[in-house]
């Protein structure tokens, strides 16, 4: 009786396993790389109805973020400005008021304009937490977390894009170790702030005011330590008693 199976079948099981393994590895590699907010959200740069240039307004003119996003310190929602705020500077007879780029603004605000509709400008939302995640802007900006930590260098963006993943693990990274992302409250909207910008004596004096310790003692205790975001943030964390919640119900309430 001859062999039922030809010779090439000896290795077929091994070969199949190797091929399936290689295929599976490739699929997992692609998924690992691209099925995450680092890939799906970072870089989202939709076209807005008016090509508002943050690098001009915030960067070049040095306008404060809160000129337009007025309620960020008081509200869980950081508002998109009403058309009235645009109109303060770009109304009839003011800055660039006849630019074709401002067509939607004129439609919303200029009652004498032939295409006036009174409809709000339909800005496209870029940063969005899922509806089951609670996020409060005011509690962050009032405790030393700058706009830049989540939104990137908006003052350098001609067109705003999604700069950070805003994923849950990304949130938790900071909630577990917030010190390096904290800064004094008067620098919240200064997006290019670095530790070296801070006046040491003033910082320790204000810190002493908050904690009741002596400024000289605080300064002496830090002698020899590197002057860094971590050091400043560690002090602020203690002074403000910041304990970022890490339990589920903090955000999923």
């Amino acid at each position: 009786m001859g062999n039922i199976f030809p010779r090439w079948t000896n290795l077929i099981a091994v070969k199949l396993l190797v091929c399936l393994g290689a295929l599976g590895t490739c699929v997992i590699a692609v998924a690992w790389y691209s099925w995450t907010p680092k890939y799906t959200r970072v870089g989202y740069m939709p076209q807005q109805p008016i090509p508002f240039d943050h690098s001009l307004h915030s960067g070049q003119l040095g306008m404060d973020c809160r000129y337009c996003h007025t309620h960020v310190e008081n509200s869980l929602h950081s508002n998109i400005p009403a058309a009235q705020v645009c109109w303060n500077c770009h109304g009839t007879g003011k800055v660039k008021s006849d630019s074709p780029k401002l067509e939607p603004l004129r439609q919303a605000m200029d009652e004498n304009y032939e295409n006036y509709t009174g409809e709000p400008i339909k800005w496209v939302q870029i940063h969005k937490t899922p509806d089951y995640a609670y996020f409060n802007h005011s509690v962050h900006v009032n405790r030393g977390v700058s706009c830049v930590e989540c939104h990137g260098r908006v003052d350098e963006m001609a067109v705003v894009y999604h700069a950070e993943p805003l994923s849950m693990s990304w949130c938790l990274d900071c909630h577990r170790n917030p010190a390096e992302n904290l800064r004094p409250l008067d620098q919240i909207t200064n997006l290019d702030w670095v530790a070296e910008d801070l006046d040491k004596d003033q910082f320790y004096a204000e810190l002493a005011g908050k904690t009741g310790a002596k400024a000289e003692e605080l300064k002496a205790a830090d002698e020899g330590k590197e002057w860094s975001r971590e050091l400043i943030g560690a002090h602020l964390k203690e002074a403000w008693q910041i304990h970022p919640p890490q339990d589920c119900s903090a955000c999923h309430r």
Partner: protein
Amino acid sequence: MRWFFLVLAIAMVATIYAIGPRGEKFSDPPFELFPDMDHQYKLRPQEPSEFFADGQAAQKPVSGTVPLGYSLPHAGNDGNTGSDLEYSSGDGYASTGQFGDNYGEGYPKEVELTPALVKRGQERYQVFCTPCHGDSGNGQGIVSKYWAIPPTANMLDARVSAMPEGQIFSTITHGKGLMGPYNGVIPVKDRWAIVSYVKSLQAASGN
């Protein structure tokens, strides 16, 4: 086997080419792998809504009603509740800067002139006023460096320095000339804080 790996390699290269690197700019709404409850049927701030006729989630108060905590507008009250000092339509001095048709001198009784108020005023001034009026109040803000718009008021000159507090408050509230109204973006109390800072700028300049 050899063929399999060749095809797999080509497929991988094609996939990597198609999906591109992380952080690449794109304009379509982000792909959601599990959109489970990301978008719930609820109203969120400043979002559109199919529920209301005007298509907006945020609704204005029904006409004839007053939001909780606010006092009735123009009903002879002086508009002094806590919320009125945020965004008020009351007709008291604190919300208008006027007694009848005249601008008032000094600060309303709800607003105490303290160093903290002036400090707050400085911060708010630098957010809202600096672009046009300049850091020092001389009307040479950065806007005047770029665009030829009619000159901005120099708040240090004799004319503005002679204005009573109520008039400066009223100007912030309603705007004047090319300046638009700021009553929608600066709460009442912050407007008084800005008045106190403007007054201190004028004092520092000797007027």
